[in-house]
């Protein structure tokens, strides 16, 4: 099945005139994603990359049946753009934009959630359900991924290409690979992603790429302990070097910060391990451990691969 996106997802690109938007849309179309329209106020009637352009998301929904949106809107306009998508009836929105003010995201998130709309990001590079569809930067080009049984949730978009590539070269495919976003506040957290993967028949195991800061890993461990996720999980926790530096300095993503005694990689590793997650120290171990877990599970059938 895969989660969130598949061959039935009809994507509208908000802010399609931007450089990154066109770059990714080109690769998405090539991959087979059903991109149906672009939205740029004032450009209705034009055609970009063969796609019709509309003045509003509402028009893209009514004219082309778009049900998902990927946003390349400059940070200052993201709040408005998310709410526009929500009001237009979009059910799923991916926010690629970095540097979105916290207050704006918080407001947009609550409006989206109150209307049942799921958000991914901001500050993410999208997601891919190999063989079916991709949104955002992930999967430019698509050959680092192949269809299969492993779900991936990562706080780093780029590292998804590493994990995808390592798994694919080992002959292990993926169900859906998601860049959840590098900000402290994001639309879909690890535990919320795990909840979706639990219900997905195609997904037999999940890989988590974790970073310092916040409580997503701890929450995921809690969720697993409470029985919310019952499939094998492999986790890699980056940022150990930060433990020897003063607190309060973010490294990399805005969310990767140890502050007020919280967010240490060592404590994240410990809680994940306690929850039964296999914590690996090297990216190269991921496919090895996944193969072991799946064969132990008896689920590494030829069909699944």
């Amino acid at each position: 099945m895969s989660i969130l996106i598949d061959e039935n997802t009809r994507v509208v690109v908000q802010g399609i005139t931007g450089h990154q938007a066109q770059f990714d849309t080109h690769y998405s179309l090539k991959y087979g994603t059903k991109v149906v329209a672009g939205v740029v106020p004032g450009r209705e009637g034009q055609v970009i990359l063969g796609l019709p352009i509309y003045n509003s998301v509402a028009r893209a929904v009514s004219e082309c049946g778009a049900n998902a949106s990927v946003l390349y809107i400059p940070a200052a306009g993201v709040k408005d753009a998310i709410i526009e998508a929500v009001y237009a009836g979009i059910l799923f929105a991916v926010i690629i934009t970095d540097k979105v003010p916290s207050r704006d995201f918080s407001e947009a998130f609550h409006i989206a959630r109150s209307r049942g709309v799921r958000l991914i990001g901001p500050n993410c590079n999208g997601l891919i359900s190999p063989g079916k569809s991709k949104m955002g930067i992930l999967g430019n080009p698509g050959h680092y991924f192949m269809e299969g049984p492993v779900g991936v949730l990562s706080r780093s978009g780029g590292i998804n290409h590493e994990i995808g590539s390592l798994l694919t070269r080992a002959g292990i495919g993926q169900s859906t690979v998601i860049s959840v976003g590098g900000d402290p506040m994001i639309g879909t957290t690890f535990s919320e992603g795990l909840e979706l993967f639990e219900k997905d028949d195609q997904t037999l195991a999940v890989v988590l790429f974790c970073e310092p800061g916040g409580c997503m890993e701890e929450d995921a461990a809690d969720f697993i302990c409470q029985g919310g996720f019952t499939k094998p999980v492999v986790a890699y926790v980056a940022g150990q070097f930060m433990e020897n530096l003063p607190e309060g300095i973010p490294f990399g993503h805005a969310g990767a910060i140890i502050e007020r005694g919280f967010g240490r990689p060592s404590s994240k590793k410990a809680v994940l391990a306690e929850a039964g997650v296999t914590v690996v120290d090297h990216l190269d171990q991921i496919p090895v451990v996944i193969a072991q877990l799946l064969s132990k599970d008896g689920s590494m059938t030829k069909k699944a691969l």
Partner: protein
Amino acid sequence: MARILEHHTKALLEAEGIPVPKGVAIDSCEALEAVEECLPFPWVLKALVPKGKKGKAGLIKKAPNQIAALQITSDILGLRMDGFEIKNVLIEEQIDIHKEIFVSITYDNRLRSPVMLLSPLGGIDVEELTQKHPDSVFRHNINIVEGFYTFQARSLCYEAGFTTEETKKISPVLVSLYRLFHRTDARILEINPLAMDGAGQVWAVGALLNVDDEALFRHPELKDIAAYGMERSLGNFTERERKVLEADMKKPGGGATRYTEFPDGDIAINVIGGGASLVVLDAIVNAGGKPANYSDLGPGKGIEDKWQALLDATLTRPGIRAVFSGGNIIGALDVSEFAKLIVHSLKEFGIDPQKIPVVARWAGLGENEARRLFEAVPGIHYYGSEVSIQAAAEKVVEILKSRDSRKEGEES
């Protein structure tokens, strides 16, 4: 998060109608004389640095008279706290404190909402408060769309055990604090202590405000008082750190550039990707190497200029003995464009990869061309997508170590 020094925070609080102790910021002992004319003793002196926990660090002192004030000021000025030089001291009237209250507003990342914490146990730091006295901390999750109202502030005060008289004084302050938090795009606003004097009047005595760097574009009024990017440094900026920050701010809409120097390192790091940068640093440290810096660059407009600024900084750092350059497998841009800039910069800064080992791991879009460009330079160790970013980063330490042991062998 951009930190705002306490005297500026106090001015913002005062403008919001929240009582603050009268105070003056000074930068020298000579300035004390003028303060005496407008502020009666006793005083409280606080070091002005963009860091919390000043009390614990001994940087908040009481001065009953001029002699004590002079002694404290001369002791504090020029000291360093976590690498930051103390250039200013805030002098405040001493409030007659009868009760200390703790208030903070931050974002709860789990709820994606602002949350207000209130505790009758003020005056101790937040870690100690939440870890040792969790039952004394009361919270209200704020609905950011609907706002925060006086009745909610009142309920929170009653819940925390304050009397009606106290609640009448505290609750309007809580509403004003949220208004300031919201209006300034704050990430943290903490008043500790919010003090109550003998007459029942409340005062914001200790104040900490961090605002959202990503929202500074709509706050011209904060531009001169918010220390943008400061939290990413291990102390006052070095010349190279300042230059990278300037390049980053020149094109604020594009990808974020991060550059933090470590004092004793000798491996220059220029990396793309937030996650990749953490993996690379861990790999090098775990293998026994010493990174000279941290770096990261996100994709976006103007990325070539920012990348060049990072190359300029990392490659001109004195004492560099090796270079690691690369990123995760990249799908956002053509890596061969970066390969060109790197090869050119190595030449420009006189770094000969046959003498200073260079490991380049550039994979993804444009990989074949990048491989050709790197492999054309003798001494560059190139890896593509066939080797993981972590394994590639370990190579630079391996090469450096084998070179060192060979040298030792030659010398002995």
